[in-house]
């Protein structure tokens, strides 16, 4: 008998040919372009021109800014391996700090004040989670409680004597707004010509280029900056390694605790910046108790939505800000119009998946499209009670569809003690 007999099995099936990869930036552009086209069609067919107006974009920018900052905060912390559900608390600290510094020394001081106060919250989170190994969610919840308490207490102490109101700061001077001229005016004139697609693009773009403040610029700039710092520098490599495999990082001489501290404090600073953005928001006098309204949590959701990446979280906060802007400006009718857009999207996806022979996915998309269309057809407007929470609903739906493709840092939230690795 021979020692070894090869069994008569068919050769293992060849691996499926890999599709050519489209670079990430190109995919992002395609997604944006598709989105604009769908919105343009929807606006034209439903008459909901607010969907693509300059004002909506501006509102979206205004609304997304605090969320974007909070999301970036989440990114820095979670890439270093620390879950930060305390973003809300750090943001509250930021609003207070910004108002306190801002009413005395002007808007730039407000920015600094927000950053410093947020960073203090971050520092506390870092001490608890990194030094004392407290569960990250636990510490985050506690910091949010503390943030609310401390700001209320301090407001009673420091703001009330001046503003006569324990819940509000004195008036904080905001930044002046500016537009990119003459592009903004040019786009405005195209928008008013009401050409299909062209006007829609002009409207969406025009909103991005007018009514700007330095904070908007900082916010948008921080997205590529975060990418470059975290993915293209040695500092970023080390910081991310703490989120992927801190034991390995430590074994290579990376000072894991230090990097985690940096990540979490930066996270707090960014959340604080989000707070400052709220305080300095055109339309705001300054600090107002409860003005964050859960935006810190939504920033966290935007980051998860964006797959723990700067570009993705920008998309997440933009989606949130856009839907919120649409529902606030144009109410239930416009949200109703978005249902129509969702139908187009679903049908488009179904067609795409049929072409790729992914039958199940295509079927699901088609069914979803049909259901959404039936809803669209059977009501005239989305009741205000639901339209008001359309952003949350959309976030939930998108996560339900896409979350399985998400990839959090491998050691995110894992308690880590120095020297206890194997």
């Amino acid at each position, binding site marked *: 008998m021979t*020692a070894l*007999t*090869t069994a008569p099995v068919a050769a293992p099936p060849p691996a499926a040919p890999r599709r050519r990869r489209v670079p990430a930036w190109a995919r992002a552009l395609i997604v944006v372009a598709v989105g604009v086209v769908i919105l343009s069609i929807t606006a034209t067919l439903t008459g909901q021109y607010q969907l693509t107006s300059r004002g909506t974009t501006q509102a979206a920018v205004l609304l997304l800014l605090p969320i974007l900052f909070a999301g970036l905060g989440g990114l820095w912390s979670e890439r270093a391996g620390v879950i930060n559900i305390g973003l809300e608390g750090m943001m509250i600290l930021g609003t207070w700090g910004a108002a306190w510094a801002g009413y005395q020394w002007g808007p730039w001081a407000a920015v600094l004040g927000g950053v410093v106060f947020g960073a203090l919250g971050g520092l506390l989170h870092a001490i608890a989670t990194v030094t004392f190994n407290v569960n990250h969610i636990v510490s985050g919840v506690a910091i949010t409680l503390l943030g609310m308490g401390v700001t209320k207490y301090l407001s009673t102490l420091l703001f009330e004597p001046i503003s006569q109101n324990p819940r509000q700061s004195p008036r904080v001077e905001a930044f002046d707004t500016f537009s990119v001229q003459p592009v903004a005016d040019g786009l405005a004139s195209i928008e008013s010509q009401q050409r299909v697609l062209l006007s829609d693009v002009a409207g969406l773009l025009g909103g991005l280029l007018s009514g700007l403040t330095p904070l908007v610029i900082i916010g948008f700039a921080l997205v590529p900056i975060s990418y470059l710092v975290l993915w293209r520098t040695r500092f970023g490599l*080390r910081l991310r390694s703490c989120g992927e495999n801190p034991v390995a990082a430590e074994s290579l*001489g990376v000072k894991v605790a230090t990097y985690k501290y940096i990540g979490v404090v930066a996270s707090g600073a960014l959340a604080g910046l989000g707070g400052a953005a709220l305080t300095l928001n055109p339309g705001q006098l300054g600090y107002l108790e409860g003005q964050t309204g859960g935006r810190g949590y939504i920033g966290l959701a935007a980051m998860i939505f964006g797959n723990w990446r700067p570009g993705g979280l920008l998309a997440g906060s933009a989606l949130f800000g856009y839907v919120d802007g649409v529902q606030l400006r144009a109410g239930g009718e416009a949200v109703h119009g978005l249902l129509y857009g969702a139908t187009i999207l679903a049908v488009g996806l179904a067609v795409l998946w049929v072409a790729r022979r992914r039958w199940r996915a295509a079927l699901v998309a088609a069914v979803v499209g049909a259901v959404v269309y039936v809803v669209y057809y059977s009501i005239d407007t989305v009741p205000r009670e639901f339209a008001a929470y359309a952003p949350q609903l959309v976030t939930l739906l998108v996560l339900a569809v896409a979350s399985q493709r998400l990839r959090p*840092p491998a050691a995110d939230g894992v308690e880590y003690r120095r020297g206890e690795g194997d």
Partner: protein
Amino acid sequence: MATSMATSAAEYAVELAGITKRFPGVVANDDIHLQVRRGEVHALCGENGAGKSTLMKILYGMQQPDEGTISVDGRIVRFRSPSDAIKAGIGMVHQHFMLADNFTVAENILLGAEGLLGIGGAARRRIAELAATVGLEVAPRVLVERLGVADRQRVEIIKVLYRGARTVILDEPTAVLVPQEVDELFDTLRTMRADGFTFLFISHKLDEVRAIADSITVIRRGTSVGTADPASVTSRQLAEMMVGSELPSPETRDSTVTDREVLRVEGLELAGESGARPVLAGIDLVVHAGEVLGIAGVEGNGQTELVETIMGMRRASAGRVVLGGRDLSQASTLERREAGIGYVPEDRTRHGLLATQSLWANRMLGHQSRPPVSRGGFLGLLDRVAARRDTERIVAEFDVRTPGVDVPAAALSGGNQQKLVVGRELSGDPVLLIASHPTRGVDVGAQARIWEELRRARARGLAVLLVSADLDELIGLSDTIKVMLRGTLVADADPATVTPESLGAAMTGADDSEAVPA
């Protein structure tokens, strides 16, 4: 043979003197002395928990000794962190991979050493050079998660070399490699030794130790008990130094195979992630009562998935699993366990134990629906007294070294944890035992104990499906061997005649002349 030599300091690349390290309840290292000459491969031997890894972590600066000194090239040094050790030219390849899966090969290598050549072109060129030295053929841009174990091992070695280490610690580097890969690794080591590198080498496979080492230090229960000359010492003698007992052998004596079919797997298939090729395809096998069926294969070829699919932890896309005539294809993991399958998972810490729970709570895992630990009923009441009692039985029968059954599982050393798992899985009269790497990383004493228990159960008529990377174990224990490659069973081997080398060849797909088409 067990003599310590007194020599002048300058002769040694590394010298550890009087190292003591205490952990709560355990003295991991107790006055250890170790001298390593420059340009040699120095092996460290010792049973599980003897303190080898701890000693090496101290040398690498990951842990600080409570007492004792470290000298490098004759100078006394103090390492506060791995960076200090790296600066002193020491590198370490850990017992468990220290790689970030979601990072590229290059990122993993550069991490922490960005200061040397930056993270740009110069660094990439250096990595390419080193990759050629150790035979890594993957592009540095590839994510580590796509790499097989051998390549991961190479990345680990490149990591060390990239930092300019002259003294390299290898903690059980061969545990996951097939013989051919071990040979390749040893070739690399020999070449590098000729270039002046010094190696500290840890392995439980004593033949390997004798094949590669220039000198051997044996550690027992935290103290260095002596050194040995690999040229003259036998594996048996080494083992006796380590544990004071005889070297066990996995030989099975007479066949107990019956013709009563216990497990039949037909056309089992497991789909890969969308678009990828199936992980398992067309698996057919039969295990009879009293038979040990061994599955050989290079890690990552579907053995893990096969076992987990049979256990119902993964959902098969096609095929049948039949146990004693009963079709279990649609059954849940618990139903399969209740039907009489015992399961020793390959990774006891991930799949076998609840680390912070007591031993008796761990006894209930997988048995939570059955007596003696469960009284059943609508609420599924647990019987904690019985669970404790039965755990005490396992502790006694399997010689689990523990102060009691109330300690958390994490407090046990690896070998003792493994004995507990084996004991648990053999409780409740299983008809089939699926054992994945049942003695991986377990020292010779515990190994012997586990083999003995497997043999005894087999004699009682238990059917065993054995997956192991240790080919000696596989050949020694199995009645039949099947070779797995890329998700399919590609060859059968007769354990009576097959050699580890020819088996290894079949496992890597490099069929040699011995293979004859059926």
